């Protein structure tokens, strides 16, 4: 199958600092890819590269289709006069100039998307009054309504309660299968994604290791990536990545390495 996305030796520098070095991976249509790594590893930068918002210093990025994007968190006030269905509708044609006349087909498409993500119950609520998990569902509908080939999500599971995390992951897995949309989702905790991921792109210290979860989440692979010895523990079906010693060499990663996995 033809690739949807190919990154070839991508490097990014920001303000003279190297953020990413020699990142290479591909995504095929319908593939579910987890972009995993500690906070500050360069996951958001990598997503910005794919969105075309961040130029690369080295390497090349090839994208073969449209992209939908779900941001990490909305900065929207509770009294903003915009309903959930308005937000989803903007996903269809929000970038277009000119006046749009209301149409039944459009309304039905919006309702269809709201049902697909399980947001029909609050379709007429203000987007700003919803919880974080509810907003994520709405933004997934907003991104998917234009039928992109690739859906990018920036830490959609951060700051959600466990029930919402499970709900969002199953919605994403179902939609990816049903519509053949490839999904690239960033997260600092890989565990909720392990059952649905086809490929893991593990980013640490600006570099990436790519493969199946079993190939990548190995002490040797991750130790090389972090540049220090780390252990991989499997406890009650959860994977924990643990630093062998607190070296302080990778301060931004320390908390994640010891606790979050």
């Amino acid at each position: 199958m033809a690739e949807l996305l190919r990154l070839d030796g991508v490097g990014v520098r920001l303000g003279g600092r190297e953020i990413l070095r020699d990142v290479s991976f591909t995504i095929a249509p319908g593939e579910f890819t987890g972009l995993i790594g500690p906070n500050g590893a360069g996951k958001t930068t990598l997503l910005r590269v794919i969105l075309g918002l961040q130029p690369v210093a080295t390497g090349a990025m090839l994208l073969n289709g449209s992209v939908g994007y779900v941001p990490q968190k909305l900065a929207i006030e509770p009294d903003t006069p915009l309903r959930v269905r308005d937000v989803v509708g903007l996903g269809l044609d929000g970038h277009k100039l000119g006046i749009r006349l209301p149409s039944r087909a459009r309304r039905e498409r919006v309702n269809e998307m709201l049902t697909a993500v399980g947001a029909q119950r609050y379709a007429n609520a203000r987007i700003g009054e919803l919880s974080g998990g509810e907003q994520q569902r709405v933004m997934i509908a907003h991104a998917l309504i234009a039928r992109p080939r690739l859906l990018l999500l920036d830490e959609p599971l951060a700051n959600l309660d466990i029930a919402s995390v499970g709900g969002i992951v199953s919605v994403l897995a179902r939609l990816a299968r049903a519509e053949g949309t490839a999904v690239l989702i960033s997260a600092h905790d890989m565990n909720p994604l392990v059952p649905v991921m086809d490929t893991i792109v593990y980013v640490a210290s600006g570099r990436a290791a790519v493969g199946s979860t079993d190939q990548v989440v190995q002490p040797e692979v991750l130790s090389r990536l972090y540049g220090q010895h780390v252990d991989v523990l499997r406890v009650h079906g959860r994977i924990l990545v643990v630093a062998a010693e607190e070296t302080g060499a990778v301060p931004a990663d320390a908390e994640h390495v010891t606790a979050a996995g």
Partner: protein
Amino acid sequence: MFTGLMLNTWITATAVAVIAGVTGFFAVLRGSSFAAHAIPNGAFAGAAGASLLGLNPFAGLAAFSVAGALGIAGLGRRARHDVATALTFVMMLGLGALFVSWSTEYAQQAYSLLFGEVFGVAADEVLPIVALGAASIAAIAVMFRPLMLSSALPEVAEARGVSARRMELAFLLVMALATSMTVPVVGALLMFSLMIGPAAAARSVTARPLAAIGLAVGIALVTVWTGIVASYQTNWPLGFFVGVLGGVFFLFGRAYGAGRRRMAVRTAAA
């Protein structure tokens, strides 16, 4: 009250309320209330400069409001938005102070630019104001969806190729366009209160964006019409009535919104 000069007043005030309601909705949505304050008020310096040079004050207003929009958008790339607005605003005010000090007979004119001369609208001023109002509303209609997307969800808009910087510039230019014609008639302060008060009240009342715009225009119309009648009867300045009514409508809107939310909570709990 509806003849001759007063008829011009009614037509102009109506056009101004419609412009203010529509542009004000987006100013509040974008959190650009400060820019909505700075552009009309800073533009008065342009009128002062133009009259000093013996030019048409409209030209000075237009030049300064456009320069203000460019300044806010340009500085906004490098600094926080409110700081960029403040810096642009104080530069324009500083120039205004200088121009007024050089001019001997300017004080009266400056007063009317700030507080308006809505009861002295000349017949030949009506058409340009209405035409410019129509132009700014047409511009907003054309960029309605990207402006909405960029104002409410800037992170997503950027990813879809709607540049926040370009939308900011486009919106500020529309605001400048609306300002340059309306300020000499209704005054900078009045334009500001008509933009913010009704739009802020409307969004507490309805969650539907088009209804909120319609309601903002409606409140602006009621405000300015009531203001004209009251001002005509009492001889108190129109700016006073518009300012007070703006605050009253806003408080009503908030109270309504709070009541609606409490009802919703009770319904959900029941």
